[in-house]
């Protein structure tokens, strides 16, 4: 029996990862922002794959949410073998035209939320079997992109968290990596207009948007024994995107 916690699992990449892990027989602790949506996702995955799925809802920017998730994992399974820190939010905005509230929200969810989730899960991971963590960063955090400076900065924080956590937790047997998706066809792209979307595709070597499943496959690989000597890496899943 293997146990995985996935944040932001109601839809998009998180839901795809949760389904892949359940398909492999992992029991799951799922998080979503919206209570009804995550309850529905958890029910569907449990019914389809026959694994135990528990879930909790809340704003990941509030540390109480990841504390509640850790407590749920502890009460149900006593440990975690895999953690996917995926919950995130996206907003585009030119410098000088991004509201303060948007700046605060991007960092609160993408940077602080990731740190809270990882921090509150560490002791559960130390009890796990070959424990591994994957965070969802972004290619924008590495390369930068005009019109998304604050989002990119919040995702650069995820990359820093990943590399530091890998060094700190490696001696305790915990691997920590991240994926850096390019432009993936999820709800997050709704904040881009059509011209922006066409522009991103034009800059992608493979000539299309990615699918959530294609990112999930890389996350599942990084969590697996096949990646047992890989830690501290930010793996691009971007179809050859140049920003």
């Amino acid at each position, binding site marked *: 029996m293997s146990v995985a916690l996935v944040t932001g699992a109601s839809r998009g990449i998180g839901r795809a990862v949760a389904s892949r892990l359940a398909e492999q027989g992992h029991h799951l602790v799922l998080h979503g922002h919206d209570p009804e949506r995550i309850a529905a996702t958890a029910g569907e995955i449990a019914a389809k794959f026959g694994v135990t799925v528990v879930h909790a809802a809340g704003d990941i920017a509030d*540390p109480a949410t990841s*504390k509640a998730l850790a*407590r749920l994992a*502890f009460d149900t399974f*006593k440990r975690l073998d895999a953690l996917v820190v995926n919950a995130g939010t996206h907003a585009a905005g030119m410098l000088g035209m991004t509201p303060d509230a948007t700046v605060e929200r991007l960092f609160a969810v993408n940077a602080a939320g990731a740190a809270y989730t990882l921090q509150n899960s560490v*002791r559960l991971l130390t*009890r796990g079997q070959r424990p591994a963590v994957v965070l969802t960063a972004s290619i924008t955090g590495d390369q930068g992109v005009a019109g998304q400076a604050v989002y990119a900065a919040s995702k650069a924080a995820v990359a820093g968290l990943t590399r530091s956590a890998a060094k700190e937790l490696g001696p*305790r047997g915990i691997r920590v990596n991240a994926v850096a998706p390019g432009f993936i066809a999820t709800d997050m792209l709704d904040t881009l207009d059509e011209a922006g979307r066409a522009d991103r595709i034009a800059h992608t070597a493979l000539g299309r948007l990615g699918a959530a499943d294609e990112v999930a496959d890389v996350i599942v690989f990084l969590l697996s024994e096949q990646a047992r000597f890989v830690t501290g890496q930010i793996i691009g899943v971007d179809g050859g995107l140049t920003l």
Partner: protein
Amino acid sequence: MTELPRLREAFRTALDLPADEPVDDLRYQDHEKWDSLAHMSLVAAIEDEFSVMIDTDDVINMSSFAEAVRILGKYGVDVK
């Protein structure tokens, strides 16, 4: 086993101390074996022993054996 001996045993096991070493006056980082890395192992051992999940703020505040007793009380474990 009553709760106090269980907590003492968790300290000795997690900090790799001799079975007869007194632990009631231990303070974080005053003892060579209770450093920041051992602290995480100690907290995990206490959680396992008493089946509680300790919040980060309490992990940070667990600066002595006496504080561990007080903190466990918050989680409904009466170690006295």
